[in-house]
């Protein structure tokens, strides 16, 4: 299941990134400390040699959710990247590959979030995915609705 793009608050000091960037899970909250989903560090290590990807800061604190679902990182994908579906597809393929490697004997439900800006480059919008890794490309349709 993919959500439609929803406007979100951006509370991080920095907001311009040249490449896909893993951002703190609490990017929308004005909190004293940043934290990431517990999968962020491993996914970043896995992905960084396969595509141009950055991470906002070292995930020193992480949110561990003891659920059978795979809670993936939150990604910031810039407007120019959104317009280039190939890069987004590469990211989605990497997420699928990572989850498949991590769970070779099962197909867990996966959850992740992609934050971007609308076409006018003003508002921050978020798309959330919640479903099997096999339907992950559904995310692309939601990004076509960004306006």
């Amino acid at each position: 299941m993919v959500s439609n793009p929803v406007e979100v608050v951006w509370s991080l000091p920095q907001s311009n990134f040249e490449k896909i960037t893993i951002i703190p899970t609490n990017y929308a909250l004005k909190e004293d400390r940043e934290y990431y989903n517990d999968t962020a560090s491993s996914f970043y290590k896995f992905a960084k040699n396969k595509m141009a990807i950055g991470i906002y800061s070292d995930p020193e604190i992480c949110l561990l959710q003891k659920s059978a679902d795979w809670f993936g990182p939150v990604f910031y994908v810039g407007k120019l990247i959104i317009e280039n579906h190939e890069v987004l597809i590469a990211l989605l393929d990497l997420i699928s590959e990572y989850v498949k490697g991590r769970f070779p004997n099962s197909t867990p439900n996966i959850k992740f979030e992609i934050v971007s800006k609308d076409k006018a480059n003003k508002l921050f919008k978020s798309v959330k995915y919640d479903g099997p890794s096999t339907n992950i490309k559904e995310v692309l349709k939601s990004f076509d609705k960004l306006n």
Partner: protein
Amino acid sequence: MARRYKWDEIESIFIEAIDNAQAVNFYTRSIRLQKEQINLLDSKINQFKGFKNHAIKNKDEPTANALLGMQCMLSSLRSSLKCWISVKENNFMEAWGHLIDAHEYCDIAIMVKTFQGLENLKVHLTGIERSIFPHWALYNSIGVLETIGKCSICGITFNDCEHLEGEIYIGRLCQRVERNIIEVNHCALVSIPHDKRCILTHISRDGKSIDNFTHEPTGVLTDDKDGLTTQGVIMTTKLLDLD
């Protein structure tokens, strides 16, 4: 001088240990025989740890991984036998914990390599879960903020190495260790949990708390005006023995 073993010999030791343990891996087998097998499995697990550490020292990844799988299958059987003993001694909470240990060891063994009988063991464990224990509709699922910790493979801060959590590296499972919980973020009730140890141990019925395994009243009265009162495990910090 330490004896050198050929792979065929190691496989024979493994198969014999598995067959002997499987033969008593049933409810009706005596506690005496099951305890005897647990002691034997303890010594076999140590022996296979020794084989594996030798392969790790020689950086022989396929052999080290296969030996980790064998060690996990032996550990799974040991936990399964402990489960039966606890059931027979009416220690149901303990039995449930042993069964989940058995499942998790078995899952790691399956992840590493498919041995003969491994899939059957998984089916056997699932059968125990479904027929001996009640169906748990809900489990606790907690969210915590914690420090990233260190890598169990190389010992440095987890962000600073190249190892991935949950991957096997030359016979060792990468885990984040030495993590410190900073804050409990939330607790939810879910039907499919990450940790099946996190069950509701007591629930309320007609204003009385009952044991969720036996359904016997505990003697504690509950105030259920606003809903169900439950008591349960919200988190375990147990790590499987994979050294």
